[in-house]
């Protein structure tokens, strides 16, 4: 017998569907890129055998010693095994954006201005966090 989902709003069901796709895609890419990284299929920006001397360093010292870029500059090194893992992580972090965008038209059609504004605000917060503008350090 099929479960009764009539009490669940269509926008919530759409949000769930898109979140499932985004999270599965992100996780699949993350696992594939990690396997390629640890099995040496793609050369790493920081060699794996040096990591044990580096992962206990404070962040800024680590970044300096390894010449690892911050913000979105990692994209220029996305062909490196360790950095390529950030693609899957970025998809996981960004998977809510498309879900939030998808529910705006439904709220707008219903005249639910407050929830349209809330969705836009949630998207703005995510984009601000993702933008890399907010750079700080120890």
């Amino acid at each position, binding site marked *: 017998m099929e*479960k*009764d*989902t009539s*009490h*669940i*709003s269509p*926008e919530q*069901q759409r*949000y*769930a*569907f898109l*979140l499932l796709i*985004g*999270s599965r895609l*992100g*996780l699949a890419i*993350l*696992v594939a*890129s*990690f396997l390629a990284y*640890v099995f040496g299929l793609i050369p790493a920006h920081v060699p*794996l*055998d*040096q990591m*044990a*001397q580096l*992962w*206990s*360093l*404070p*962040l800024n010292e*680590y*970044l300096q010693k390894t010449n*690892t*870029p*911050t*913000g979105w500059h990692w994209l220029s090194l996305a062909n490196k095994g*360790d950095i390529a*893992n950030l693609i899957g*992580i*970025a998809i*996981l*972090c960004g*998977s*809510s954006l498309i879900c939030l965008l998808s*529910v705006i038209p439904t709220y707008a059609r219903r005249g639910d201005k*407050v*929830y349209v504004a*809330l*969705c836009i605000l*949630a998207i703005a*917060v*995510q984009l601000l*966090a*993702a933008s*890399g503008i*907010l750079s*700080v*350090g*120890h």
Partner: protein
Amino acid sequence: MLGKAIRGIGGFLKTHAVVIWLALSMGAASAYAADAIPAPSAMPWWGFPLALFVTSFLLGIVAVPSGVGGGVLFVPIVGGFFPFHLDFVRGAGLLVALASALAAGPSLLRGGLASLRLALPLAVLASASAIAGAMVGLAIPANIVQIALGGTILGIVLLMATAKKSEFPEVAAPDSLSSALAMNGIFHDAARGQNINWQVHRTKTGLALFLCIGFLAGLFGMGAGWANVPVLNLLMGAPLKVSAGTSSFILTLVDSSAAWIYMNKGAVLAIVTVPSVIGMMLGATIGARLLHVLKASVVRKMVISLLLFAGVRALLKGLGIWV
């Protein structure tokens, strides 16, 4: 066959709960020993990531039956007992909590156990303050974060040991804000076989508390289910199952906004993050299947004692007493 294997594992875990606790403690202690006497050549590069995977897997198993998120266990235990810098542990912790929330989110939303209407106003505030928390956490010295983390973990231990739960809190009337936002809904309670109408109150206080919760999530890199659920359930009056489901869904927004900050700052290391995420997710899958086999109260006590140990360790490490 798989069911048989899981039942077998369940039986083993049931009878060996103390052994698992000791294994977790000893794993942590050996990692601590390696931390105390740095000997980079003593262990191949894959030694700690493998230990991290096993630890995350075990934490994932106990996280579900004990009713706490994996992130809250991960950060103090890995931060206290593994050689990774706390910045990288918090980055990984956020991703662990985010991946777990993303894995559960879609089915919670489809099943009506998470409410988009209830979550959105709270999540907007909490995700904005999580950004502030992440920025503060990455700006202040690591030992200060360790001390604050230790104090917070001990607070969580107290909360876990004393907090009550209410399956269906009584909300006589919704407040004006929750009425205006229509923060109400229906969820199907499979145990009762009926649809339950719910509504919430004390929305303004709830929003203010979510502002604080988001900040802590970003600051410490922990999921915040330990705080979300009591606020939604005990303060705002949402049914327990809706509170737990909505809390998990809120984390998909809160943890992602904080994780962006850690990622942009370079504090997400694949070699620390990915084994943790995979280990925790595999462990949580087993943990969820073992729910009916394990005695939740025993696992919960075990987790509380583990957190107590990790909290004291974080506090002493931050104070420079037990480095």
